[in-house]
């Protein structure tokens, strides 16, 4: 059972790939009743995206699909046919929200533009996610994650200053877009309480990232400075430095004096007063860096991280997927959820971004198989007979 905050809201997920499915997964985890509508035959594009469970490229084994579609029910439906559209309109009239990420021109062609949807159900909130939004000179641009990241203005700042800008992590642009869309969709539902009507929410993935420019933007329009990528030569402390078993992120931030940091790392020479101020650390940056490398080489990541936390310092450490999947802290927070999928079997998945004390989050539905809930939704809920469903299937509608 997911959390109960959005109980009673019906959401149609017409999305494909990452942004819209991530948005509706967030809504599903908060308790919304999410029905995923996929194209008969091929389904969500993420079913064809790697990595796959057991490295087996199978439509029910895509890890992206399995992760992004928990707690949803799945139907197949082609709304471009006449009988498909009839069925789709029945679904629409019962829904509170529709989320999609089709290119603007394509949604118009399919009759999935806001005007056509609102004509069926004026109370519907329609959220359209696109790399550059529904309007403007780039709205019909061809885009992938790296292209979206580039044009957002954020990619320029990722990576090292003596190297090209570096791509983000695992299609991050579309996760940020989905998180934004989940918030904005609910704002429109909240507005509906007083407005009495739904509305269209136009979400631009590039702008979601562009909103992160709260430092680089004023650097330029306050003083003409272009904030770059991280400098190769710094004040001794680099953001990631080698420890014995991997990389750590030492930091001078926080309210503790320099002596606490020097004492933690445990190298006598670091106690020198000349390193005690920011200016001193800049002036003696190269020497400090050598000492830090020497000192940190005595440490493994986890003991250093724990010792730093206990001294109220704010060091970090580079963790990989295995470290995180087995993290004891996340385990105690009941972050992981057990999911049993009919094809790939039981496994521990990452759970919700927030902990909601008082909510019972005792089980998680696995991502739906392609068309898994056709009879439940179309038959039991909408009243189509078994014979009618067979007819629709033979015509490729479901």
């Amino acid at each position, binding site marked *: 059972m997911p959390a109960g905050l959005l109980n009673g809201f019906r959401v149609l997920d017409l999305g494909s790939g990452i942004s819209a499915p991530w948005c509706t997964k967030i809504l599903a985890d*908060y308790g919304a009743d999410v029905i995923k509508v996929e194209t008969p035959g091929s389904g969500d594009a993420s079913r064809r995206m790697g990595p796959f469970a057991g490295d087996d490229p199978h439509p029910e084994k895509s890890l992206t699909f399995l992760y992004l579609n928990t707690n949803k029910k799945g139907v197949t439906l082609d709304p471009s046919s006449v009988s498909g559209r009839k069925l789709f309109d029945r679904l629409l009239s019962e829904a509170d929200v529709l989320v999609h990420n089709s290119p603007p021109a394509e949604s118009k062609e399919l009759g999935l533009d806001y005007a056509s949807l609102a004509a069926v159900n004026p109370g519907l909130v329609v959220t359209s996610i696109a790399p550059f939004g529904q309007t403007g000179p780039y709205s019909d641009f*061809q885009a992938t994650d790296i292209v979206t990241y580039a044009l957002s203005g954020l990619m320029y700042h990722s990576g090292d200053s003596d190297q090209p800008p570096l791509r983000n992590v695992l299609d991050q642009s579309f996760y940020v877009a989905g998180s934004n869309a989940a918030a904005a969709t609910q704002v429109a539902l909240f507005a509906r309480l007083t407005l009495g009507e739904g509305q269209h929410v136009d979400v631009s993935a590039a702008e979601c990232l562009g909103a992160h420019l709260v430092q680089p933007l004023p650097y330029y329009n306050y003083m003409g400075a272009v904030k770059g990528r991280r400098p190769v030569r710094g004040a001794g402390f680099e953001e990631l430095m080698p420890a014995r078993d991997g990389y750590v992120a030492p930091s001078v931030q926080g309210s503790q004096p320099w002596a606490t940091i020097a004492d933690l790392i445990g190298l006598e020479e670091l106690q020198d007063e000349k390193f005690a101020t920011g200016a001193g650390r800049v002036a003696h940056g190269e020497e400090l860096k050598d000492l830090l490398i020497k000192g940190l080489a005595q440490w493994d990541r986890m003991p250093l991280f724990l010792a730093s936390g206990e001294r109220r310092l704010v060091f970090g450490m580079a963790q990989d997927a295995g470290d995180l999947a087995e993290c004891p802290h996340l385990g105690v927070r009941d972050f992981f959820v057990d999911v049993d999928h009919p094809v790939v079997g039981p496994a521990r998945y990452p759970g919700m971004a927030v902990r909601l004390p008082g909510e019972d989050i005792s089980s998680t539905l696995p991502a739906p198989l392609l068309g898994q809930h056709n009879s439940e939704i179309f038959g039991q809920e909408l009243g189509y007979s078994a014979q009618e469903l067979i007819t629709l299937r033979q015509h490729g509608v479901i």
Partner: protein
Amino acid sequence: MSLAHEPQAPLKNIRVLDLSRVFAMPFAGANLADLGAEVIKIDTCQTQFMDTTRTTTGPFPDNQPGEFWWEQGGTFQNLNRGKRSLTLDLRSEESQGIIKDLVGVCDVVLENFTPRVMARFGLDYESLRAHKPDLIMVSNTGYGHSGPWSNFGAMASALEPTHGTGAFMGYMSEGTDGRLTEGQVPNKMGNSYSDFLASWTALGSLMAALLRRARTGQGQWIDLAMYQTGTTVIGTGLLDYVFNDRRTLRIGNRHPVLSPHGVYPCQGHDQWVAIAARDENDWQAICQAMGNLGLVADARFADPIDRRQHQEELDEIIGAWTSARTSYQAMTSLQEAGAPAGAILTAKQALTDPQYLDRGFFETVHNPPEVGLRSKGYVGRAWKFSNSETGIKGPAPRLGEANEYVLAELLGIDQQSMERLAEDWTIGNLPEGGRAPGQVPLDEQAVLGWIAEFDADYLDRLAR
């Protein structure tokens, strides 16, 4: 309930008490203000306890903090636009009492203290709920309010590698055969990425809580750990470990499947264009844009598997073509041919980019003249509502500008008590102690690598 039918601000009847500092929650609060909420920022006159975005983050106009430097920081302004400001001294019982009274007339509390601090102030959720039974509160911390690391402090730059982004991000390194291979050194998106993930997550979760409260009258405490939030956006990576025992993927700007996929140098200093081929149509479009259709027939580049094998040769060919163009020219030619391509914009370029301008993403904000800030563009929101009024309501609040409004009007505190609070610097409009932070001149910052470059004539450039 009477229905409005006219566009209005979605959160116009919501009042938010914003106890938060620095980036993540203040930005969530700013977005709530843009949506129409009345957001009251708790400030302080004690300079050493002020939000560091008021005191040290900058940037200051022309790198010169002015007479009202604590009102001027560009990042502070972006993160706190449209809010009100009440000064208090949270160490005093009287101020803590005022917070509790204020919670009674607010709907939402945002805070990002470590758990022990809020408990020490008596401002934890259970205590505050006594004053507002249906309170919705977001507590944002590095590691959350439960678990062995819960009292560890955190900041985004050290959190980002801790929540795993460095496992999936890094430049490739040169293998023994001289070819590029998966890199060993983690890298970062930087730019306080973890903070913004927390901002968006806070907005989503508190909207869910507001929707339930509207229907059932129930409040909610939201325990938002940035470490945990950061882990959710790499869920596919975690599952790759669970199912396939794979721990990292550091392949620079390449893609595990698509090719070509990368960034290519363009005319000008540190200018780049990102290019990706999703399929064979995109690949042919790239060849067509480069005027090199011969490549389509080249056996080295016949399919994505071949292209990935010969990616270094392919990158050289594409790089030679992009180097003779500006990033915008390369992007335009590729997009006209139908291939995914985007110029890697600096913030300077973003400010004049046609798409951002067309959608009005940067919203111009005017400060009162005495603050000493020219009117400037601030970052807007990525969401356009067809039937709701949203937008930046005004500049960040001047220190304590809402003291009278909140204390006298909302809470009914008498003038005599207000005067006493002013005498001991609990309320006021000026910092007690402290002075304008010293700034490193921009030419020195450029040498140190803190900035890439600067334009002395930036105002003229932006006006053009």
